[in-house]
C-alpha cells in the first residue's frame, strides 16, 4: 500500500498499538533544556526510576540564559537555579550536558541539527513546541509537555494517537526579497493558528526543494503556529549533504545502512492525505504580522483588514488590535519601530545573519532603534565572524550578542518594554511574549534589517532595488 513519508517514519517507531487509544511511539532522540525538564527529573526521583537510555537524551541550556557576559555568574537567582538543576540532573543520569559557556551550547533546535543529533527518519521530541524544526530533515519531531519528558526519560516512549496528515504544496518561484520565513507566515495567515490542529504536515513542491536546510528549518519550525503538531520535508541530496559527517551522524557501516533507509523516505505515488492544499510561490510577498497571533499576518504593502474580513470573533480581533495600538485600514509601512530582534530557533541561523547583513551593509542603524542580534549557537556566532559579517555589522552600528533564546520568550533580561514596538524574526507575537506589554511584529530577517536601518516598518524590496 502507498504510504506517506509521515506514515513510514511513524509506523517504523510504533512499539505497540492500544485498542481505542494511542500508539506507543519509540523516540530515537530526546532534547532537553532547563525550563521544562526539572519537574520531569523530580518525577523520576519520586518513582525511584532511572533514565532508560541516557545516550539518547541531550541537554542544552538556552531559554533562561543571558546573551551578554556569559562568562560571569548568572545574576538572576531563579534562572541560575534552573541552570544548576539541569547540570545536576544531567550529571546524575549520565546525559550529555551543554551548559552555558560550553562550546556546543546554543538554542536546542539550532544545535540539534548542527551536531547531527537530528537525522532523517528519526523520531525526535523536546519539551518545546518548536521541536517541529527538525522535521526539515524528514524526521517526525514535535513538542511535548513535562509529563511526557518524564515518560521519555524513563521509558524512551510516549503515547500518542496518530495524527491526521496534510500536504501543503508551494510551487513556483519566490519573488525578490521573499524568504522562507515569508512562505511560512503566508501559509499561517491562510490557515489561521488552528487551521492545522490535529494534523502533521508534509511540505512539498519546488519552493521547498530549492530551499537550503536553514530555510527548511525555518518553515518546519513555524508549523506549530498553525496548530500542526509538526511539519516535515522529504530528505534529498541537500539533506544528506548537510547531515553527513556530523558528530552524532552514524559513521562507517552504520552510515551506509542509514543512507539506505534515508533513500526510502518519501511519500509514495498515490498515497492519500486527509487534506491537501496548494499555493503559488510567486504570489507571496514579504510578510509582517499586525496582531497578537502569528495567523494575523499579511503582505507588508497591505492595509490591516477589517474585522469583517477575518475569521473569528470581532471582540477578539478588536482586543488584539487595541493591544497593538493599531486600527483597521492602517498601512503597516511607516509604523514606528523601537526594537529589532534577529534570532531564535526560527531565524537565528547563519543564513539569517547573511540576509540581515546584506541589507544593512553600507547603511547605519537608525538612532531610535535598539537592535538585538542573537546567534542561535556558537557555531553560528563563529561563522558570522569568519565570513566577515561581524565587521560589516559593526560598521553599520550593530553589536552581536551571545547565543540563546533571548527575546523570543524574554525569560532573561532581553525584554521589550511595555508599549514598545519590536520587529522580530522569532515565532510568536502573543501579548507580552517579548516582555509584559511588548508589541511584536513578526517578520523575516530582511524586513527586520529594513526596519533597523530606517527606524520604521519598511518594505525591504525598496532597499534591495536601491542596491541593484
Amino acid at each position, binding site marked *: 500500500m502507498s504510504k506517506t513519508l509521515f506514515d513510514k517514519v511513524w509506523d517504523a517507531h510504533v512499539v505497540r498499538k492500544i485498542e481505542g487509544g494511542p500508539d506507543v511511539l519509540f523516540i530515537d532522540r530526546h532534547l532537553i533544556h532547563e525550563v521544562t525538564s526539572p519537574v520531569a527529573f523530580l518525577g523520576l526521583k519520586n518513582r525511584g526510576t532511572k533514565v532508560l537510555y541516557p545516550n539518547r537524551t541531550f541537554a542544552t541550556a538556552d531559554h533562561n540564559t543571558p546573551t551578554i557576559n556569559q562568562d560571569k555568574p548568572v545574576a538572576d537567582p531563579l534562572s541560575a537555579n534552573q541552570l544548576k538543576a539541569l547540570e545536576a540532573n544531567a550529571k546524575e543520569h549520565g546525559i550529555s550536558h551543554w551548559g552555558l559557556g560550553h562550546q556546543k551550547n546554543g538554542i536546542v533546535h539550532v544545535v540539534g541539527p548542527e551536531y547531527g543529533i537530528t537525522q532523517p527518519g528519526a523520531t525526535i521530541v523536546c519539551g518545546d*513546541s518548536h521541536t517541529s524544526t527538525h522535521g526539515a530533515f524528514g524526521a517526525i519531531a514535535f513538542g511535548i509537555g513535562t509529563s511526557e519528558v518524564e515518560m521519555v526519560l524513563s521509558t524512551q516512549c510516549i503515547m500518542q494517537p496518530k495524527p491526521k496528515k496534510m500536504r501543503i504544496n508551494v510551487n513556483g518561484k519566490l519573488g525578490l526579497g521573499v524568504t522562507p520565513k515569508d512562505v511560512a507566515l503566508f501559509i499561517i495567515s491562510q490557515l489561521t493558528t488552528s487551521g492545522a490542529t490535529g494534523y502533521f504536515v508534509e511540505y512539498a513542491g519546488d519552493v521547498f526543494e530549492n530551499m537550503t536546510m536553514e530555510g527548511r528549518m525555518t518553515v518546519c519550525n513555524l508549523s506549530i503556529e498553525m496548530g500542526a503538531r509538526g511539519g516535515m520535508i522529504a530528505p534529498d541530496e541537500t539533506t544528506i549533504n548537510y547531515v553527513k559527517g556530523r558528530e552524532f551522524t552514524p559513521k562507517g557501516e552504520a552510515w551506509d545502512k542509514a543512507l539506505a533507509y534515508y533513500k526510502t523516505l518519501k511519500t509514495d505515488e498515490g498515497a492519500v492525505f486527509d487534506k491537501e492544499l496548494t499555493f503559488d510561490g510567486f504570489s507571496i510577498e514579504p510578510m509582517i504580522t499586525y496582531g497578537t497571533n502569528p495567523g494575523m499576518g499579511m503582505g507588508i504593502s497591505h492595509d490591516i483588514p477589517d474585522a469583517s474580513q477575518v475569521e473569528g470573533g470581532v471582540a477578539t480581533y478588536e482586543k488584539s488590535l487595541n493591544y497593538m495600538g493599531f486600527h483597521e485600514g492602517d498601512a503597516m509601512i511607516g509604523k514606528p519601530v523601537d526594537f529589532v530582534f534577529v534570532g531564535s530557533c526560527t531565524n537565528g541561523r547563519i543564513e539569517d545573519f547573511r540576509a540581515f547583513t546584506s541589507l544593512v551593509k553600507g547603511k547605519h542603524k537608525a538612532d531610535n532603534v535598539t537592535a538585538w542580534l542573537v546567534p542561535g549557537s556558537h557555531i553560528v556566532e563563529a561563522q558570522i565572524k569568519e565570513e566577515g559579517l561581524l565587521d560589516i555589522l559593526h560598521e553599520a552600528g550593530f553589536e552581536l550578542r551571545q547565543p540563546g533564546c533571548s527575546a523570543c520568550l524574554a525569560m532573561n533580561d532581553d525584554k521589550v518594554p511595555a508599549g514598545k514596538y519590536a520587529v522580530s524574526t522569532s515565532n510568536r507575537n502573543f501579548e507580552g*511574549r517579548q516582555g509584559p506589554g511588548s508589541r511584536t511584529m513578526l517578520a523575516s530577517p530582511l524586513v527586520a534589517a529594513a526596519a533597523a536601518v530606517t527606524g520604521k516598518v519598511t518594505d525591504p524590496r525598496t532597499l534591495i532595488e536601491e542596491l541593484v
Partner: protein
Amino acid sequence: MAYDKFNILTSTAVPLPIENVDTDQIIPARFLKATERVGFGDNLFRDWRYNPDNTPKQDFVLNNPIYSGKILVGGKNFGSGSSREHAAWAVYDYGFRAVVSSFFADIFKNNCLNIGVLPVQVSPEFADKIFAAIHADPKTELEINLPEQTITLLATGEKETFEINSYKKNNMLNGFDDIDYLQSIKGDIEAFAEKLPF
C-alpha cells in the same frame, strides 16, 4: 505521578469567552523558573489578572467574585502556542478540574489529560449556550459526567456528549498515568530499541 480520579463533576463555571487564548497568557514565561511543580495557580492569567503594580484588574473574570467553580469555559482554540505544561499546572493549581471549549490546541489538551484536568470539547452552539447560561445566572451549574461522556446544563437539562479515547478515559477514571503503563511494557520497548538504525 498518579493524579486525582475524575468521575462526575458538578460545579459552577468561570467564563472566558476569548478566542485563541495562548499558553503565554495562561502563564507568562517569566513564571516558568521554578524547579518544582507548586504555586503556579497564583500566576494563572497573570497579565490579564493583575496590573504591573500587582493590584488586581477589576474587569478580569477571575477577579469577579460572582464567578467561581471548578470548570473553566474558554473560547475557541484554547491553549494554543507554547508546549509548557506549566499552563495546565496553573489551571489545575488554581482549582479547575475541567476546561470546556469548542476547540483545543493539541499539546495543551494532551498536557491536561496527563495531569488529570479533563478537556471537554463541545460544539460551538453548545459553548454559546453555556456562555449565555452563565451570563444569565453566574450560579448556574454544569455537570460533567466522564463515564457517560456527557456535559449537561443542569438548569435546563440540555446535554451534549463529548469524545475521549477509551484509554485516556480509563486513566482519568482511575487516576493512572502513562508512565505506569509504559513501565509495565519495558521488555517490549527494549527489544524494539535493538532493531532501530540509530
